[in-house]
């Protein structure tokens, strides 16, 4: 087994439709987010009460909201928020979950048992309700949304890492390494981790898209990032009472979420096919 399937993967990737479409969409969203740092059609911090609730037009492509802000600009800046929250919460899951899962696989026995039971415990909590409780303790805000989403990413990555690592431990190349006298920690870092990296990348993509959805949900119930930072979920919340007056306020932020999540899911599917054909038929 080679440690890196990338060179071989490149040509395969270009032929994979999911991967190409997903990468394109994700790329566009990422560019939009980066662009918003230097340029947006209008400033999102300035209100124009007189020009509120305007439907889409040439001057405001996606219309204006109830404070007269440009919705396109809001969506662009809001993408930063979604991406940042999802990214950091995935990073938390990776940074804590993967070592735990690898440790459990390497040690086995009661440590494995305990860690997996803790996993079950976290899984047993309804995620959104727990997020509500977490924000009741710490108050709403982007950081707390990250914590709430991140906590639930930990057991996901722990389970994936442990499962994959367990299937590797009885393999010959690991048995060989053990015969050479390498310790569990060294084997984990030198042999196990590189071989499960693909799997983790795929899972990270999936969790990233779930993170975008979760952030939108939390913001929608008022627990995500706070004004003046625009967020897609809160834009939808504000649109709700005005849906009869200004349906465009509800339409576009929702489309932004769907397109972003769709792009990430396609990218994840594509990556799975490209990086590890064996996994193709799972899920």
């Amino acid at each position, binding site marked *: 087994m080679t440690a890196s399937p990338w060179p071989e993967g490149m040509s395969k990737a270009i032929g994979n439709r999911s991967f190409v479409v997903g990468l394109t969409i994700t790329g566009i969203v990422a560019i939009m987010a980066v662009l918003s740092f230097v340029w947006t059609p209008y400033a999102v911090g300035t*209100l124009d*009460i007189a020009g509120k609730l305007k439907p889409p037009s040439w001057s405001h492509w996606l219309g204006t909201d*109830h*404070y007269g802000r440009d919705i396109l600009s809001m969506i662009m800046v809001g993408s930063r928020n979604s991406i940042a929250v999802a990214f950091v919460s995935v990073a938390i899951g990776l940074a804590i979950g993967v070592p735990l899962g690898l440790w459990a696989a390497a040690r086995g026995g009661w440590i494995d048992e305990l860690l997996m039971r803790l996993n079950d415990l976290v899984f047993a909590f309804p995620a959104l309700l727990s997020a509500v409780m977490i924000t*009741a303790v710490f108050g709403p805000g982007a950081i707390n949304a990250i914590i709430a989403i991140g906590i639930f990413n930990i057991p996901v990555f722990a389970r994936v890492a442990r499962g994959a690592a367990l299937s590797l431990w009885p393999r010959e190349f690991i048995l060989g390494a053990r015969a050479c006298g390498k310790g569990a920690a060294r084997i984990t870092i030198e042999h196990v981790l590189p071989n499960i990296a693909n799997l983790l990348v795929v899972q990270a993509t999936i969790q990233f898209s779930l993170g975008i959805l979760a952030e939108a949900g939390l913001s929608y119930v008022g627990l995500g990032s*706070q004004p*003046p930072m625009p967020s897609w979920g809160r834009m939808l919340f504000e649109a*709700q*009472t005005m849906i009869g*007056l200004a349906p465009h306020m509800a339409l576009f932020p929702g489309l932004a979420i769907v397109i972003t999540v769709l792009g990430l899911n396609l990218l994840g599917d594509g990556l799975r096919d490209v990086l590890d054909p064996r996994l193709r038929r799972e899920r």
Partner: protein
Amino acid sequence: MNNFAKSALVGAALALLTSSAAFAARADLVLGIVLEPPHIDPTAGAAAAIDEIVYANIFEGLTRIGPKGEVLPALAESWTLSDDGKTYTFKLHKDVKFHDGTSFDAEDVKFSLDRARGGDSTNAQKGLFAAIDTVEVVDPLTVKVTLKQPSGDFLYNMGWGDAVIVAPESAQTNKEKPIGTGPFKFDSWAKGSQIVISKNAAYWGKPALLDKATFRIIPDPAAATAALLAGDVQAFPVFPSYETIAQFEADPRFKVVIGTTEGETILGMNNKKPPFDNLKVRQAIAHAIDRKALIDGAMFGLGTPIGSFFPPHHPAYIDLTSQTAFDPELSKKLLAEAGHPDGFKTTLKLPPPTYARRGGEIIAAELRDVGIQAEIVPLEWAQWLDQVFKNKDYDMTIVSHTEPNDLNIFARDDYYFNYDNPAFKDLIKQIEATSDDAKRTELYQEAQKILATDVPAAFLFQLPKTGVWDAKIEGLWENGPIQANDLTAVKWAD
């Protein structure tokens, strides 16, 4: 046709008419309310939703507040005041019965007042009873209340929902099964959904015109709009969706009544915390706020700008808004004079209501324009009460003070504004001891001027009472002098 036959015919026709009219007149009503009360005992909770259901309908006090905010007799049919202004003698109505059939007399009054001011009282407005020294039962229909000092507000205070008369037998169970003396009695409560009250056939006074009233709990503005349009709810006395008011105004099936409330909405500032201890900073903040844009943006144009802490519908009101008119340049100048030429960073803690959340967003943007970076911190009510109100751990906040007659909060020691002006405190003491109307008006106006000059808070607007109901309903209150839905005179027009 002989006379007898004629009159018989006329009689029959009349009978037909009246019976068909009786058939046509509806006697049930579904009202929408935004918040579900935690329980429905007005003597043990501050939630406005309690009074919105029970006040004047289920429970009555010695006095009651009328639709214009006036004091009217209720369980006390009359009263006299001693010459020293300290002893009220209340004459009670006779033949009054509680809903459970027990009779009402002076003992119940003594019990209720003593319970409300007692050591283990959980009355949310215990301060209303602070002036009372003793309550004596003279005879079953006479009660003598002696005050510690004369109080111009006492009769008004006894009209609050928190001062209603309850019976010792049912006081413990009123939270779930309220037993009062009013024209309606409690029927049922489906938690999270609705509360039903029905006509009290044995009422001592003028009987209610409705047989049944249902309070349906609809917290969501969009759902409230839909429920009214569909006719599921026929009246929304405090309609939560300012943005759809225009739609109802254009619809002849509905009557839209924009009345006033006692809710002065303010940008509260922590007067002891730098930089808000500096008058110029507070003035700069007040001048940075465009009240019109605020009312248009947050309230969809509903609400009256205020320049001090006083309701515009009060006879003693004076318009002081020009004293803190919108003027960003002046604001920047004042900031520079106060030593903050580049503005400063601060926080703005917001409780849940729409006026606060939307208003906060607009004010934060306006403050940014003069250089003040206010970070928005949304709080639930529990957190707001804990952090802002109790521990005074805040810089700025937006809240509407909806209690009537509450100018005196700026005179309270240790209140969350941390505002301390001895001259103002003196003035409030004088007002409380004055019962002459002309003199009171003069003092009220002086007090308004002090607040407009000192800017202990930026005064924003008076909260409107946005009532929307079926055009055929008569008798609902147009204004909200207290938070109540008095249904005693409500009926369907034919």
